[in-house]
């Protein structure tokens, strides 16, 4: 495999079985392209998923793949990463898989900073089981279990991750490959838990739920693409920006021209800024996309190996250990 890889090298023979028009297709392609571009090796790349439409992902990737059980992918992946930290381990999950039944494993994975690349396909619905509302569904979501509209308060995936202590939080839109692929590259390069919320359209059960910022006519005013060190501006030609109102401890949208020096710069290391950006709701605010939060910190497995007295290698013989303590001899 000396020749350069293309995305085709990451395709499998399996027929892709998502609904026509599902956002999953676009993400699959972007991942395949990104892996080819960064020169990942299929044999040292592993995709671990739970259960859900999105969790079928591993079948379509020519890499090692494990389609585990509902909600448990981060736990399986943690075990794998401890056994072999040299692998690139990706976790593919959904809003139900990763935040409902699997919320606890996600929480502790993020807290520990296990070196996993977590792609959370958030379509705000349980796709595979035919469209019940999920913990990220908006209030009022009509579904087979909420025929009159849901009333639960949704979870913000980003704020949840921040509260869990995530060091890397990013967001991207399924079909926007020019923005998605750089995020995937950053994920690939990161060595702790890289948590990415992907806004993924479920054309069957929750079509256009992200329309307020993904609709062609809305992207310019509806999306803010953050870049560390760059001003937090959006809109036509960067005409709008964000400033911080200390009195209320809140963000505000202002026009860039008149408030040039008040516009915030993006600082991906600031938890406060992350909280503000992740908490922005459309249409009042744009949706913050890109790498919103990134701090460098030793990964769980690095600590594990560094603190393990022998780096998990066998340096003694069982016989010697058995014989070493408080023994006596009978002749």
């Amino acid at each position, binding site marked *: 495999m000396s020749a350069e890889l293309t995305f085709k090298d990451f395709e*499998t023979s*399996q027929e892709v079985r998502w609904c026509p028009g599902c956002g999953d297709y676009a993400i699959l392609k972007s991942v395949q392209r990104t892996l080819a571009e960064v020169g990942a090796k*299929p*044999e*040292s790349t*592993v995709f*671990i998923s739970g*259960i859900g439409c999105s969790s079928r992902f*591993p*079948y379509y990737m*020519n*890499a*090692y*793949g*494990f*389609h*585990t*059980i509902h909600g*448990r992918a981060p*736990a*399986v*992946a*943690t*075990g*794998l*990463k*401890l*056994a*072999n930290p*040299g*692998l690139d381990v990706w976790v593919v999950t959904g809003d139900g898989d990763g935040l409902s039944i699997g919320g*606890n*494993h996600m*929480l*502790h994975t993020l807290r520990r900073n296990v070196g996993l690349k977590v792609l959370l396909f958030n379509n705000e619905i349980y796709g595979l089981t035919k469209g019940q509302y999920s913990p990220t569904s908006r209030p009022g979501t009509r579904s087979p279990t909420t025929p009159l509209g849901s009333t639960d308060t949704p979870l913000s995936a980003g704020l949840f991750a921040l509260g869990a202590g995530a060091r890397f939080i990013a967001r991207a839109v399924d079909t926007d490959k020019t923005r998605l692929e750089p995020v995937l590259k950053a994920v690939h390069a990161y060595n702790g838990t890289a948590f990415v919320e992907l806004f993924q359209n479920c054309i069957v059960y929750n079509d256009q739920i992200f329309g307020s910022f993904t609709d062609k006519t809305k992207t310019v005013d509806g999306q803010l693409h953050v870049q560390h060190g760059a001003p937090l501006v959006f809109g036509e030609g960067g005409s709008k920006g964000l400033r911080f109102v200390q009195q209320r401890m809140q963000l505000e949208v202002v026009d860039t021209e008149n408030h040039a020096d008040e516009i915030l710069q993006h600082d991906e290391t600031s938890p406060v800024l992350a909280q503000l950006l992740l908490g922005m709701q459309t249409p009042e605010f744009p949706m913050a996309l890109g790498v919103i939060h990134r701090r460098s910190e030793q990964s769980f497995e690095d600590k*594990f190996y560094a603190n*393990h*007295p*022998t780096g*998990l*290698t*066998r*340096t*003694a*013989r*069982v*016989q010697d*250990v*058995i*014989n070493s*303590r*408080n*023994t*006596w*001899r*009978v*002749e």
Partner: protein
Amino acid sequence: MGERESIVLRIAGDSGDGVQLMGSQFVASSAYAGSDFTTFQDFPAEIRAPLGSTFGVSAYQVNLGAGPITTSGDDPQVLVAFNPAALKVSRPLLAEGALIIINTNSFTRRNLAKAGFEKDPRETGELDGYRVLEVEISQRTLEAVADLDLTKTSAGRCKNFWALGLLLWMFDRELTPIEGYIAGKFKKNKLLVKANLAALRAGNAYAETAELSAPPQRVELQAADFAPGQYRGATGSEVLALGLAAAGELADRRLLFCSYPITPASSLLHHLVRLSQLGVGIFQAEDEIAAACAAIGASYGGAIGVTSSSGPGIALKTEAIGLAVSAEIPLVVINSQRGGPATGLPTKTEQSDLYQAVFGRNADTPVPVLAPASPSDCFEVAIEAVRVALRHMTPVIILTDGYLTNAAEPWALPDMGDYAPIECNQPPLLTAGADGESIAFQRDPVSFGRPWVVPGTPELMHRLGGLETNIETGHLSNNAENHQHMSQMRADKVASVAKFLAPQKVALGPDQGELGVVGWGSTYGPIYQAVRRLRDTGYPVSHVHIRQLNPFPENLESLLAGFDRLLIPEMNMGQLSTLIRARFGFEVVPLNNVTGQPFRVADLVDAIRAQLPQSSSEPDTPTPREASL
């Protein structure tokens, strides 16, 4: 007191009295002197109950002597009671005429009240029928260390060594090994070394000098008839930990132990964390589900993934175990059983998770199940479990329990040279044009184990999962016939385990006859003793002990068929009885004990004799009972 074959000693006191330490040192000294033994630690359910309360009593019981000693003994013949609560709790257990050594300093009105004594039992006649030795243990300890510059609390803490000194005299044991132990244990604090040595010697001297004119006289124990070799005392969980590490060495793989604390399983975790140098890693997960899944992930990555818990935690793992069955991933699941249902009796022992182990998963999801019979046996079972997991690419369940976890006995140290390496299924070489993807699914025709192809291996990328897959390609398949084949393959795989394991032997007695007593797991000790006693007095009875609970050994049916009657004692409501009936259709007599306590040998003797009513050769003697001191 003359020479005795064996004796049961119980030391009881508050958690802070150093009872466990004292017990284990006493046993160490006895071991050096050639006694066989089995010990059992009886911990209070509370972390640190109020001083002096009955529910705060911590006890250490040891049965020692000529052996084979296989239980920690029914009725203690010697009790050391550090306080009234210890006496209150232990008295009902004692053999008639037992010797009770009392720390009189603790028999204050307050302590008596806390223990629930309305009056001092020494005065009510409650202790008639026992021999009582009253010693001011606390007081004499303080005196012994008086010239050292110690706080009163620190000084008082030496009393366990004072009492140990006394016991060592009674049993005619050397002080030297204990002195060595003290020197090591307190090496950071010279003063404590001195104090404990002083207390030890003072207690010893006290017993030896005229001050002790009455009992205890010396106890002379027959030495045990040990096979030559190297020994050490070890609990089941220590041995199990070493067995797992040994399996790692034999397979030349790292061992990743993924667990979430729970009583009594945690002790395994605590032991394994100290075996790093053997290539063992520990992952304390957020819960049992994560622990099981992480172990699966570890095995997927080529390490030996082991997970462990007790019943309620195992319940949480059952979905994940099903995944390992479906994806054919090796995994060892250890269940340290405890009393149930639900939270139940966490500190008490029980064998009631056999149903769960054999049947407790959704769908037809067979899993091999093994159970060690004794602390020493834990070593063999750990190695066997890993061997089975790797050969058949399957999860394997080990059923141990609270008793085995905490019980110690002399362990004849194994020679690693006696164990064959653990093989795993290597992927065949990829021939040109072959389908690398399906190689992970080319199962061995006998064991049905598939090659263990781990991520990182070039060209053999494939996908695993919990959905049904084609039996040849490993691709997803909804096909009707394929599902039937795969279900059959999974059943055959587990059935094939029996082909590789040793046939069932009889533990004691002939391999056919009037009555077979059939057990499994930690009841080995009491059943063995009971059968031995009865055989010694001429009863025609055999003991069969099953280590391999699923699948049963291939010859088990014919072996059991050779007995006219089968008695099955279990610490549950009859789970092995159900399995034996279901599998072989034999009539069996269940003997169920769910008290949270191991069987008493005497009770077993009675129960077994009741199954032998017309036995010809029977002298109508009462149940043999140890002569009291």
